[in-house]
């Protein structure tokens, strides 16, 4: 870990003697394979350290194939790179506990680095499995130099923290072996306090992220566990430090006493805290309600009140009043019941829009009932236009409410436009009247559909049918 500069990912090579660990390591470090193998063999003599290391890498480092597959399969994690942006790098406690973010600066230089060959991959043996490749594109786009560190620290913050801690422990143990008098009695509690504080303070980042990304229950649960762990560590550390001698009996006694004190404090403060919390919640809910109210008021003012004023001014003209009321009703309905998340531009939306247009134009209500839906196509637009023509005719000559029924099935889209007017005979319609012949029948025929007009003394119904050409029908989304 201390040797770093990362270039190719650490992966066990196919060029192998035993498991490809050494050759992989060599590629990764940019050393000759032979040197790596010799170093490994030598370190094996040092109490079997090399052997343990080799076994460890064998287990933890994937083969080149596996690594490639994993990187290809796993999508970039959306959170991981964002979590540990080095914003809190200045936190003193963390730096002491084992420098987390700035750490890489101390270890190993930047080294040369070829963007093309650097695919995301594990740089450290033990952590090989958990590094998301998400940061790769970001890294590839950056010039070698300063920002490179940021990317690196983003990706390996936790590992570096852990590694530094372990190194520190190892250093202390070595120092003790060498006979240096290390004041363990102070160091351990201090480390505990710092570690606990670090864990607890990580909350800050977490909650901020939760606010930004998504506040899920699981996150909160994890947060609480972390807080508790941090608290326990800090309390224990402080206790041991305060109790000074580090004697366990005393420590336990002190721990018991302090837990009792803490319990008492919690007991006393809990009602107050709960009340405070509830007040906060109430206030928040109230604010949300207030915002919603304001939005509704603004909308009602802009639309409904204005329309009502217009209606009063034109009270004498029944036709206008009706039209205004209808238009307002439609608008309000759309605002109240339309799901804003739903996409528009489907066939049923077009038909409804056209119906509204006809309603506004001629004043008679046009009721649309739709079953099923489909995406718009050129042919369907023609269907809509033919239906519009039929609606116009129905509204104009029927002189009353118009019923429009749209049904989309796998096979075809049907539109029925019905009115209760006096009706007409198609042969009687003069040749120069383009409406029916051209805009309805001709248009449907040109797009491979059919149009049928049935008229009697009790009303007229135009039946339009357009066969589906593509498999783009979606049922039940109207």
């Amino acid at each position: 870990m201390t040797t770093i500069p990362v270039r190719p990912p650490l992966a066990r090579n196919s060029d192998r003697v035993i498991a490809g660990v050494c050759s992989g390591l060599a590629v990764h470090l940019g050393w000759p394979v032979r040197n790596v193998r010799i170093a490994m063999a030598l370190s094996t003599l040092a109490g079997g350290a090399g052997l343990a290391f080799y076994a460890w890498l064998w287990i933890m480092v994937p083969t080149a194939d596996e690594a490639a597959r994993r990187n290809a399969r796993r999508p970039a994690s959306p959170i991981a790179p964002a979590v540990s942006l080095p914003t809190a790098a200045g936190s003193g406690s963390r730096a002491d506990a084992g420098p987390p973010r700035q750490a890489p600066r101390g270890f190993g230089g930047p080294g040369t680095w070829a963007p093309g060959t650097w695919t995301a991959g594990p740089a450290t043996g033990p952590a090989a499995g958990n590094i998301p490749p998400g940061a790769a594109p970001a890294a590839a786009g950056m010039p070698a130099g300063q920002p490179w560190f940021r990317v690196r620290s983003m990706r390996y913050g936790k590992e570096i923290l852990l590694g530094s801690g372990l190194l520190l422990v190892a250093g202390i143990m070595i120092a003790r072996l060498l006979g240096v008098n290390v004041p363990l009695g102070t160091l351990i509690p201090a480390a505990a306090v710092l570690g606990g504080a670090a864990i607890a303070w990580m909350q800050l980042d977490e909650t901020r992220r939760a606010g930004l990304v998504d506040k899920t229950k699981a996150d909160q649960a994890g947060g609480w566990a972390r807080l508790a762990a941090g608290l326990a560590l800090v309390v224990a550390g402080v206790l041991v430090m305060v109790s000074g001698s580090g004697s366990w009996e005393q420590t336990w006694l002190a721990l018991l006493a302090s837990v009792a004190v803490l319990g008492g404090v919690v007991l006393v403060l809990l009602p107050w805290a709960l009340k405070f919390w509830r007040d906060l919640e109430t206030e928040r809910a109230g604010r949300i309600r207030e915002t919603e109210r304001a939005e509704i008021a603004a909308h009602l003012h802009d639309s409904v009140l204005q329309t009502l004023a217009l209606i009063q001014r034109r009270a004498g003209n029944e036709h206008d009043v009706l039209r205004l009321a209808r238009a307002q009703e439609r608008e309000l309905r759309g605002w109240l019941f339309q799901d804003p998340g739903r996409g528009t531009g489907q066939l049923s939306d077009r038909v409804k829009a056209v119906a509204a247009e006809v309603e506004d134009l001629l004043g008679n209500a046009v009721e649309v009932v739709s079953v099923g839906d489909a995406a718009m196509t050129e042919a369907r637009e023609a269907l809509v236009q033919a239906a519009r023509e039929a609606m116009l005719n129905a509204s104009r000559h029927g002189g009353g409410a118009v019923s429009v029924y749209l049904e989309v099935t796998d096979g075809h889209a049907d539109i029925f436009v019905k009115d209760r007017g006096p009706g007409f005979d198609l042969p009687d319609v003069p040749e120069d009247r383009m409406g029916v012949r051209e805009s309805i029948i001709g248009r449907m025929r040109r797009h491979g559909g059919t149009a049928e007009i049935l008229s009697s003394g009790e009303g007229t119904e135009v039946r339009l049918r357009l066969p589906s050409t593509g498999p783009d029908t979606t049922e039940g989304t109207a």
Partner: protein
Amino acid sequence: MNTLPEAAGPPSRSVRVVIVDDHTIFRSGLKADLDASIQVVGEAATVEQAIAVIATERPDVVLLDVHLPGGLGGGGREVIAGSVPLLAGTKFLALSVSDAAEDVVAVIRAGARGYITKTISGAEITDAVYRVAGGDAVFSPRLAGFVLDAFGTAPADIADDELDKLSVRELEVMRLIARGYSYKEVAKELFISIKTVETHVSAVLRKLQLSSRHELTKWAAERRLL
């Protein structure tokens, strides 16, 4: 739906109606609009009032707004649920300004015999009241559209549960109603009697109320439309 009292059978006595709606203006407007042969015996503005008035008056038909204040927030649905023992003698006709499928389907499944929008004329409402009083179901084009959307437009052929699908004939009737046909026009179009049309509509209503198809409720809840 402009068919008339004589198709539903002339009333032997005037129909007694209770109007349940929280808008005073709408109640008085509706009262003025209804035919003289319809006797409005009570009004209510909340769920509690409605249940009480219905229990004392035992009307033939309750014109019931889907959205009502009071009770547990269930609106018209709750009124029907609270009047279950009277359902044999009292029919509920849902009347709503809301076209939201979940409202409509919920109140129908609770036991209403029909659903009409508030924008229809007094004559049409009168007709619907007689129809419901006579034991028939009243379907507006939109309700028929909901039914077709919820049950699907494919007829029952391999249905394991006949409640989950509509028969070919029922589908035809529903389609025509959705297209704006009156019962009379449906009968003429399909060469069947009005009585047969009514039978089909009642059968569809029964399926709508009894179908245990979980998709139906889910469908209604998911569907947000104007």
